[in-house]
């Protein structure tokens, strides 16, 4: 793109960025609303912020009111609505990174570089919720705006390193992080077996390692067969809710009409979770093949992968792989000569945990604020553009591919009766070998932690299932990792996140982090969640400071009441689960100052 840097005013420049981004649409033609987020991204990544001029021009081009555009853009944290320096360093300050030193980094940056959010020359930094790089914690993401925007992910080796990144004019790409370490023996792996082995952009490599066998089987045996296999495999969704995948696929398949969509939920934002990133970065063709099978099975011709904004490499690799697949007729108007028509588009989020909620994700894809919809109707009936839509997360799709490629019997033979197949676990925090581990369902948490090199005697707590999950005590780790066993102890596997917290760490600090996270990430739509997350955060702060409002008994009552109304009356899963980890910690760790155990509160 030639935006004529030297001759154009900033206003003209941003207008040409918008016109360029909208170039695929004819002048004067109605531009679809769903084109909005990609254009906002283009503005943000070229200018570093979204100005009044940009909003005015975009409003005129898209026929959407300026206020409406502003309302959408201001929802997403990676969009800046005020002048911002070109280079912004997003320093992860979430649970896993905190356990590995992010606080010292944040302190160093505030003291030595600039207060959070303030510009120094061309640079600024701010704290970020989990960046999904927990095995490389502490992590940071630097976004550099320009004609050729850059997105660089770092392991911040030390506070000095952070300062160096902040100040250094070096804008080369940070490729050091592309290596994915899989520490388990290859032969035991199913979903991870190609990760780190194949070249992620080589279709030949993918095929040489068993790729596209699933699609061939699906084409040969037909949609009904796929649906039957999924049902018999008893595959449960890996996104957190554990809904039977076969039921979902069948529901979409049985909807009449040709216009249906496959949406891959790759907005992996649950703190401590990074397995979907590993799959997308290491084995992108698997995601594509799985979606193609889904499209064939339910009768959809179009798929979207909604990749969280903080995953630049995953998005790049998926786009490259999609290009390869198109070139080899694995996508397009006649997939593999089977007559199937299917194509996939990658869309990127812009910094909103809530967009991992499937209906918020659909809103976001449609170019709106990521506010969850009220259900019913469910996406299987009225999803994207109000059409039947299959929304599955990356791991679920890859597991479905495993079912189709190897058969339901094979899949169901692994794991337990009710929790079949393997599961990816993201182990991070105070362990020697953080990373993604693939285990058949049914292994115990202890066995998983042993693989990751946990020092058992030092474990204070394990946060299982992410911020929306549950804390377990060090003496509870013999729990088998299955849907049914976790449910029994009122815990959840959630997203497969396993964060190990050692005895040097203050539980109240961890809880404050979680409370802040939900306060920060609530979409604000419904009262229980919007105000509830604020009240919970305030309460956690009071406990941490040991200054109760009224008596501690009052505070306990408040927390119970808040948790209950948020679970019962919030619109979506975020509100329903926002207090579960915090409540479980109070339940298990004697954190109330008036009931403190000897080794408790700290």
């Amino acid at each position, binding site marked *: 793109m030639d935006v004529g840097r030297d001759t154009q005013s900033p206003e003209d420049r941003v207008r040409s960025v918008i016109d360029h981004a909208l170039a695929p649409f004819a002048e004067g033609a109605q531009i679809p609303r769903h084109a909005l987020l990609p254009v906002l991204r283009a503005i943000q990544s070229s200018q570093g912020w979204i100005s*009044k001029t940009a*909003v005015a021009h975009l409003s005129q081009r898209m026929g*959407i*009111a*300026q*206020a*409406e*555009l*502003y*309302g959408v853009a*201001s*929802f997403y*944290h990676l969009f800046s*609505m005020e002048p911002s320096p070109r280079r912004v360093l997003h320093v992860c300050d979430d649970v896993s990174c905190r356990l590995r030193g992010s606080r010292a980094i944040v302190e160093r940056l505030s003291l030595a570089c600039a207060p959070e959010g303030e510009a120094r020359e061309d640079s600024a930094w701010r704290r970020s919720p989990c960046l999904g790089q927990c095995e490389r914690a502490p992590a940071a993401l630097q976004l550099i705006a320009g004609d050729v925007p850059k997105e660089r992910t770092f392991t911040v080796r030390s506070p000095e390193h952070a300062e160096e990144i902040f100040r250094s004019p070096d804008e080369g790409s940070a490729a050091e992080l592309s290596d994915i370490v899989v520490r388990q023996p290859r032969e035991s792996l199913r979903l991870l077996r190609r990760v780190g082995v194949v070249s992620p952009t080589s279709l030949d490599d993918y095929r040489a390692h068993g790729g596209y066998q699933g699609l061939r089987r699906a084409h040969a045996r037909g949609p009904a067969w796929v649906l039957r296999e999924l049902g018999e495999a008893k595959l449960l969704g890996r996104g957190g809710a554990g809904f039977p995948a076969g039921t979902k696929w069948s529901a979409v398949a049985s909807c009449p009409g040709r216009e249906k969509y496959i949406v891959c939920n790759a907005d992996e934002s649950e703190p401590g979770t990074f397995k979907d990133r590993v799959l997308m970065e290491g084995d992108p063709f698997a995601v594509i093949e799985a979606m193609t099978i889904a499209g064939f099975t339910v009768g959809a011709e179009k798929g979207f992968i909604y990749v969280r904004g903080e995953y630049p490499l995953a998005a790049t690799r998926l786009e490259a792989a999609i290009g390869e697949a198109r070139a080899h007729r694995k996508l397009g108007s006649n997939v593999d000569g089977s007559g199937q028509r299917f194509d996939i588009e990658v869309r990127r989020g812009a910094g*909103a945990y809530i967009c991992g909620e499937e209906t918020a994700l659909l809103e976001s894809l449609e170019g709106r*604020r990521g*506010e969850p919809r*009220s259900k*019913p109707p469910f996406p299987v009936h009225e999803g994207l553009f109000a059409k039947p839509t299959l929304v599955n997360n990356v791991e679920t799709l890859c597991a479905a591919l495993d079912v189709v490629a190897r058969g339901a019997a094979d899949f169901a033979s692994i794991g337990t009766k009710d929790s079949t197949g393997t599961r990816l676990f993201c182990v991070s925090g105070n362990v020697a070998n953080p990373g993604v581990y693939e285990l058949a369902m049914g292994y115990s948490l202890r066995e998983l932690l042993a693989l990751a090199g946990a020092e058992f005697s030092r474990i204070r707590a394990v946060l299982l299932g992410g911020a929306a999950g549950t804390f377990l005590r060090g003496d509870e780790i013999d729990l088998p990792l299955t849907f049914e066993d976790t449910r029994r102890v009122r815990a959840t596997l959630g997203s497969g996140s396993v964060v190990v917290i050692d005895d040097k760490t203050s539980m109240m600090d961890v809880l404050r982090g979680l409370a802040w996270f939900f*306060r*920060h*990430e*609530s*979409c*604000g*739509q*419904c*009262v*229980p969640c*919007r*105000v*509830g*997350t*604020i*009240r919970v955060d*305030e309460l956690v702060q009071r406990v941490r400071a040991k200054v109760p*409002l*009224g008596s501690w008994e*009052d505070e306990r009552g*408040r927390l119970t*009441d*808040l948790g*209950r*109304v948020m*679970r*019962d*009356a*919030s*619109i979506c899963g975020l509100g*329903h689960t926002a207090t579960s980890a915090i409540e479980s910690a109070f339940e298990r760790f004697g954190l109330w100052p008036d009931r403190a155990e000897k080794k408790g509160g700290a």
Partner: protein
Amino acid sequence: MRTEKPKGRDGGLVQIERMIELEVDGRAVRVPEGSTILDACKKLGVDTPTLCFAENLTPVNACRVCVVELEGSRTLVASCSRKAEPKMVVRTDTERVRSSRKMVLELLGSSVNMSAAGEFENWCSQYHAEPERLGTPSHAPAVIDNDLFVRDYSRCMLCYKCVEACGDDAQHTFAIVMTGRGGEAKIATEFDVSLPESACVFCGNCVGVCPTAALQFRREHTLREAGEWDLAKQTVTKTVCPYCGVGCVLELHVQGDEIVRVTSPSDSSVTDGHLCVKGRFGWGYVR
């Protein structure tokens, strides 16, 4: 509920209305297809608090004060938006429902000045809600950027009604929207510019639907600030707008021989409760 009687090309009458039977608090009730649980409650005379709901707007179910228990549902459901289905079993009188409503009232009352929000204080006593135990709302001066109405954000409960009335539920002007997120969410214009600088056409339909007096007529604001606003001294007279020929029904709210507010009934087939700038504010010439 609006019932339409379209005539076919041959002038024949087409009207199909299927009835649905469900159970609310142990009582059977029949409502037309497309009705909500709230409609069913109303039909039975079951009193249900609502704040973000309005007859003339699409339900956004954001406030959650109208939640009820629905058999088979893990969580409570918003009665204002949940469509009635055959054989539904609904309970509105359980401890769980009362507790959620109480908490919603407390969360709102602890963060927003709800003193002008209709039944709010009655509901608080009915549900034993004590908002102060969760906090007290902070005060901020109202935003006054035009001579017709003011915005008092300390009273704004983010119910989306004004956004809907300004947007595609009525006015299609799209001058105000929800901006930001979570605790920072705020209803505003683009970049928070003043209303005269925005797309606002000053129809005041946002003022008409506001349940908490976060949006007030300029005169109302003056009277409220002076402590002279007194609903007991007000009369409401229904009449017809003196401007164009559409015949919009006006409700003139008069206090002390002075018009202090103009609304339109939401069940008027002419206006659906909405007016234009002249009907809403163009009465300055009277007295």
